[in-house]
């Protein structure tokens, strides 16, 4: 269906802005809010022009308080609206953790479906663009560990637009993490008009048979780059973009591993307790007999994301580190 549409070249911010615009136009219950989201259009301009277009009842600034933003959104959602909140940076989510852990994903469960939270929380995440301290965190594992929420991390403008529209339609709370590195760093053809892409489906973005690279968000381009380099040496790597961490598309992960027999999991959050551990565990539980090498993780080091931009590129996984891991699984 999407293929029949006309396309334009957009970057991720433009694609997200377009999705928000379409959601506001389609469903009058949709409201957008957060710090600087209204008049200014967001620090990354994701809501650029929308307050002017839809008015301040639909798109509005809030006080500077993340717990308030999430709690307020939970209330809007319980009352029947479709709130889309922006947390300015994923690393600023932490004041809202009580709302997130205690309520966001529990309200449907604890009220046995009487009250539900069809809310989207968008947050830019990840490093690679020399942001100040606390602006480059990747808290997806923290969020994936919250029962009752979904976690989506797109890797391209086309995917971001369709997944965001699906997230806004979703009847349950969805975290939508947007890689800062990709906001303006990637441009691609994006279909026109309203379309959704299904949550909970991973996709093979490059086929190969030598080893599987599992990644999401900002690490997809890193893995694709590594795969290109490997291909020059005749090694075909399969790259699987998970897109949705919760609910996780385990069958696609397993079928890739059953084909290649080797798995490398790539994420930019701190290695220990990261989401890669969950992927590795599922592979070990369900496809151990197919493995010809240990499952390796390429991730941020067990240290805070460095506020020292001169060395941040040594923290965030790059193609070189991915290829080192690939070599280890191939030589095992």
């Amino acid at each position, binding site marked *: 269906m999407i293929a029949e549409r006309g396309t334009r070249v957009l970057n991720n911010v433009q694609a997200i802005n377009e999705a928000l615009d379409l959601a506001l136009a389609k469903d009058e219950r949709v409201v957008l809010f957060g710090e600087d989201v209204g008049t200014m259009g967001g620090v990354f301009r994701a809501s650029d022009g929308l307050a002017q277009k839809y008015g301040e009842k639909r798109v509005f600034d809030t006080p500077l308080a993340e717990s308030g933003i*999430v709690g*307020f959104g939970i209330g809007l959602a319980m009352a029947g609206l479709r709130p889309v909140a922006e947390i300015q940076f994923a690393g600023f989510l932490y004041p809202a953790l009580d709302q997130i852990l205690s309520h966001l994903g529990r309200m449907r469960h604890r009220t*046995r479906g009487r009250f539900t939270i069809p809310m989207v929380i968008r947050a830019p995440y990840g490093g690679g663009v020399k942001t100040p301290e606390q602006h480059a965190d990747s808290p997806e594992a923290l969020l994936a560990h919250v029962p009752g929420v979904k976690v989506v991390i797109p890797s391209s403008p086309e995917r971001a637009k369709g997944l965001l529209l699906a997230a806004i339609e979703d009847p349950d709370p969805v975290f939508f993490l947007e890689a800062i590195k990709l906001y303006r760093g990637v441009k691609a053809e994006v279909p026109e008009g309203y379309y959704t892409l299904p949550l909970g489906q991973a996709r093979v973005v490059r086929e190969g048979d030598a080893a599987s690279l599992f990644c999401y968000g900002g690490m997809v381009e890193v893995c694709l780059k590594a795969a290109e380099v490997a291909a020059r040496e005749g090694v075909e790597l399969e790259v699987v973009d998970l897109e949705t961490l919760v609910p996780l598309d385990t069958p696609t992960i397993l079928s890739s591993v059953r084909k290649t027999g080797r798995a490398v999991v790539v994420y930019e959050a701190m290695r220990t307790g990261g989401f890669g551990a969950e992927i590795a565990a599922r592979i070990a539980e369900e496809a151990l007999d197919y493995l010809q090498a240990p499952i390796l993780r390429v991730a941020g080091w067990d240290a805070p994301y460095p506020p020292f931009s001169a060395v941040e590129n040594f923290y965030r996984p790059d193609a070189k580190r991915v290829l080192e891991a690939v070599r280890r699984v191939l030589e095992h």
Partner: protein
Amino acid sequence: MDTIQYLDDQGRPLRDLPLSPEELLQGYRALRRARHFDERVLVLQRQGRLGVYPPFRGQEAAQVGVALCLRPDYDWLLPSYRESAAALTFGMPISKLILSWRADPAGWGAPPNVNMVQFYIPIATQIPQAAGVAHAQRLMGKDAVVAVFIGDGGTSEGDFHEGLNFAAVFNAPLLVVVQNNGWAISVPTHKQMKVQRIAQKAQGYGIPGVTVDGNDLVAVWSVAREAVNRARAGGGPTLIEALTYRVAPHTSSDDPSRYRSEEETERWLKRDPILRMKNCLLHLGLWSEDQEAALSEALEAEFLAAVEEADQAPEPKPWEIVEQVYQEMQPDQQAAWQYLRGEA
């Protein structure tokens, strides 16, 4: 700041009452109904027929007076765990409340015609949410009002501040009702804050703040009614501090002798909100001991019927644990569901 009061400690009217005789009678019946519920569920608890229960004895007026101003199918109530009296008066069926405090899933969702969110256990998280529910009413073009309850200890939490600030900035139709009952489990109010009156905190948000005698139903009702009318008319939120006292333990598991003497409790028991209201009615010639006896009988019959109804709720099923996590069950919940049903 003055404390608003209409009845003296014995229940004699201090001035003209702003309620009609019918309202005074309705209010007294609601107080008695709440007290009856509290006493009877504590018995169930002692019999092992209820889980941990936070009693509200002594705080009936501070809750009932607010709930009487609200329409359950239109307005909203977000109570903390102490507010069973508010819930009951707002319209929650007794059987549902019993099931709720039995930690039975059948009691954890309000009926469709009662806009009450299940009792909040974390402290103060309900305040920003209530601000959101309230703002949503305005966005949807309704003049519905939201009442949210919190204790004196809860005002120390960050969410109390964030929620009040949001409510104020958005001019949300919200009543933030603080049950200042003197204790946050074992910590007295003077260790919790330096202000003399919690209502003073309203000044920090640019909204009205009122301190009311929480053991005076006439005062609570009239203060809440004024705040509800203001909110409905677009006048924004009000912070109401109801001065009362937790004469009972924190919960059925608490032992107050570890942290307080009961001298002050004895003083407050003499200011019991139900005794005061009864004396008020007797003083005005609106009530008799015959009516009192008939009311007791009716309340007990209602309670027994509710217990019977609660007892008939189906046994909770283990697989209900993984139901209602998402609208549509996801593969991981599906697998657990099948396991719990013995199908996998």
